[in-house]
């Protein structure tokens, strides 16, 4: 049985207006379904053409340092996806106009069975890889078999999105079915398929390289741009793919991706001097300067990273007590912490769930809660009471505070050290280490408190509840456990009713607040800036920098 929302087999080229109309009609039909589920997915071509767009020109784009390897699936950093994704496509994608709505990509249509256990994708015909090979369902199967069940020695951070996927069955060369062992929320699954990380690569490429593409620089994709040349740690140059299936796209002839450290004055200077057309991950000082410049646009948007302090519950007895952990959480003035780094990196406050997710406590409500208030007096009083009740009214001495080498973490560590000392008489010794050592020390449990950042692929809590707060979660550096939470998280993962799920996520938030696994210091934001000659992209409503990364819709006004 086909999903009534996505079953219309009619094929047509749609205009922006007709597409929006269709969305509106479908949206009315599904009532309360979230916006990104309302896509009818009937178009052969993706629906974001700009009638004013001009062909030609070169886009010079500055983003992040060079990737450590070339395997996009195995990566967790924008170093890969920022540079490489213009060469690849995914099954579904997020509409670059809003960064939210899920629209067709290599799959022009999809059906979801009523029991939510079968996802069938109808693939485009006539699509070719850059090496001339035909794209078929076998390539999708090989790609997803690798993502779902990575071969030995391969680690794919997104595997956890597909834990419910049992079988991947090729129905015919242009139809493929994902069979789930149990249903998952539809928004979650479609979001996983639309993730920019899950690029489709050739089966032959994977077979030839034993499933490991870390050292393979130029493996063929089906994307709008083709590899031309690369200078390590400098620039990756791509040209327009003349055989792109999405006829007329991309608009620009050449894409130059410059590798520059994020939040660095170097990136800011390259943009402000006009050597880049578009800069991503700008430092706040350069970004503010760019905003004031005539002929420049700028946007700030949300990113999938939380900056957090972890408690080592295995090593430190006091930190095993939930009251002590909550007291430390309450003792930190989050607004001041955001302010401390305002010239280094853009941040915003948030709780234990992404503050911009529809199921999380709204910001206005969150700021009324202890731990997030603008006036910290009440929360500090409460923190003192909690320490007293736990038997640590005199404070704690000699906590080993492991700090990751980065300007933001060093600034925060000093501020946190002062706040804990002043409010709770908790004394910490700061120990700054390089990133590679931080993870080694954190994994070995050589710390009392530690500060770093953790990430997720999706905004949906089911993506990160297990990784961040799960019993054996790879990013649960606090070694935190709470049976009530773990059981609730499992149910949230399976709950397909959006309203029920939202209520459950709020319950989970309450548990995490009373028994904190970490202190959410702040949530990262992204600062982008571009000269107005760059048209077709405004990321202000995007979530993260991992989904809308292809540049096929962008055109140059002065081309």
């Amino acid at each position, binding site marked *: 049985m086909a999903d009534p929302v996505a079953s219309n087999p009619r094929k047509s080229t749609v205009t922006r207006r007709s597409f929006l109309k269709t969305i509106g009609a479908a949206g009315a039909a599904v009532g309360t379904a979230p916006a990104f589920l309302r896509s009818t997915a009937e178009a052969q071509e993706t629906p974001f053409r700009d009638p004013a767009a001009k062909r030609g020109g070169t886009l010079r784009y500055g983003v992040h340092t060079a990737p450590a390897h070339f395997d996009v699936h195995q990566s967790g950093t924008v170093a890969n996806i920022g540079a490489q994704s213009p060469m690849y496509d995914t099954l579904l994608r997020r509409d670059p106009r809003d960064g939210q709505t899920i629209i067709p990509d290599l799959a022009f249509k999809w059906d979801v069975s009523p029991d939510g256990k079968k996802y069938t994708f109808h693939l485009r015909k006539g699509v070719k890889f850059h090496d001339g090979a035909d794209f078929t369902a076998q390539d999708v199967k090989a790609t997803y078999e690798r993502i779902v069940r990575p071969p030995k020695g391969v680690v794919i951070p997104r595997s956890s999105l597909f834990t419910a996927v049992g079988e991947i069955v090729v129905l015919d060369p242009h139809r493929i079915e994902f069979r789930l062992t149990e249903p998952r929320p539809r928004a979650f699954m479609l979001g996983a398929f639309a993730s920019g990380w899950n690029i489709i690569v050739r089966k032959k490429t994977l077979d030839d390289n034993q499933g490991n593409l*870390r050292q393979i620089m130029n493996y063929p994709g089906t994307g709008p741009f083709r590899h031309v040349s690369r200078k390590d*740690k400098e620039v990756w140059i791509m040209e327009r793919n003349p055989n792109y299936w999405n006829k007329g796209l991309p608009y620009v002839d050449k894409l130059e991706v410059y590798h520059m450290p994020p939040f660095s004055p170097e990136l800011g200077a390259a943009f*402000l001097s006009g050597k880049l057309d578009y800069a991503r991950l700008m430092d706040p000082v350069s970004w503010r300067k760019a905003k004031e410049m005539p002929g420049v646009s700028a946007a700030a948007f949300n990113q999938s990273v939380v900056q957090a302090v972890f408690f080592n519950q295995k090593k430190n007895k006091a930190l095993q007590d939930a009251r002590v952990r909550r007291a430390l959480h309450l003792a930190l003035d989050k607004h001041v912490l955001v302010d401390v780094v305002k010239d280094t990196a853009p941040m915003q406050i948030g709780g234990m769930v992404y503050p911009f997710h529809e199921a999380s406590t709204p910001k206005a409500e969150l700021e009324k809660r202890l731990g997030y208030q603008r006036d910290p007096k009440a929360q500090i009083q409460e923190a003192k009471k909690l320490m007293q009740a736990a038997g640590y009214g005199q404070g704690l001495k000699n906590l080993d505070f492991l700090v990751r080498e980065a300007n933001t973490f060093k600034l925060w560590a000093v501020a946190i050290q002062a706040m804990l000392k002043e409010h709770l008489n908790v004394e910490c010794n700061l120990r700054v280490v390089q990133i590679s050592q931080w*993870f080694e020390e954190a994994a070995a449990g050589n710390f009392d408190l530690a500060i770093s950042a953790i990430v997720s692929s999706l905004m949906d809590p089911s993506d990160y509840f297990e990784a961040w707060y799960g019993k054996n979660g790879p990013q649960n550096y606090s070694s935190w456990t709470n049976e009530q939470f773990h059981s609730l998280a499992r149910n949230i993962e399976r709950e397909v009713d959006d309203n029920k799920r939202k209520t459950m996520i709020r319950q989970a938030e309450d548990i995490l607040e009373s028994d904190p696994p970490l202190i959410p210091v702040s949530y990262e934001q992204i600062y982008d800036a571009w000269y107005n000659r760059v048209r077709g992209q405004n990321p202000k409503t995007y979530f993260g920098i991992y989904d809308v990364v292809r540049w096929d819709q962008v055109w140059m006004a002065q081309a």
Partner: protein
Amino acid sequence: MQKYLLRRAFFALGTLIGVSLIIFVVLRILPGDPLVAILGVEGHAKMAPADREALMRDLGLSDSLPVQYARWMRDIAVGELGKSFFRGDTVRDLILHRGPLSGEIAILALIISWLVGLPVGILSAIRPNGWADAVARSLSVLFIAVPGFWLGLLIVLALLFWFGYKAPIIIVQLWEDPWQNFQLVIGPAAVLGLAQGAYIARMARSCLLEVIREDYVRTARAKGTVERSVVLRHALPNALLPVITISGVLLGFVLGGSVAVEQAFGVPGLGRALVVAIVERDIVVVQNLVLLYAAIFVLVNVLVDMSYAWLDPRIRYQ
């Protein structure tokens, strides 16, 4: 002379072997996991211990230290220099691509240091304790005291905010576009050259002051030789020996300083590659680049020693 050169070559080789051993051991005992940089934070956290071990084996980091060291020496002997842990690029290609830029910066810095340092030193010496001497000495102290990377940052920011200018953001080789290339190297070379020029000025001044008081200089003056000739033809050549010696040492500082200054100017030379490799814990790149810097330093010092005989016929090597 031949014996002397052989002896120097032998000592130089011994020094380089010592340096290689120190780099090799230090890089392997320092804490930090290169897999974090290779796999990313999330990937590293999710990797099973067995897979982690397999990857370390693939990178050659599970072998015993003597085996790893022998492999490195073999790579050097055949000119391969190994591959970066990341992206699979060879260190040889990295050096060939970025080395010319850093080499240009070093040579240009040395030229600037002599062009600025020597005249200033002479000026100070011929009118000691005058106003020109006071200004020269103050400036030389200033340039010695100011850190190069800080000065570099100030220059970059001043050019950007006052003139909206930034040097090219990728490597442009001298033979591809000399003007673009000049814009890349002149900033770091000037900052490094001025700092080294300050040392040279001070050294040239003190040596010249000493030589000018010698009997043969007085004799030259008594014979009616013009002052310019006295200074440039009679005094200066004899005052130059210590300046040349210090130039060899200063080249080492230029190489060391270029690491920070390239970073400040955003110039993608070898110094910057070294910084990135250290952050990424890319052991193969770090050990080869440090050894390369050491080899250049040793070679320059040997050349300086050899130049003594040419400059001062009284010096004969036994």
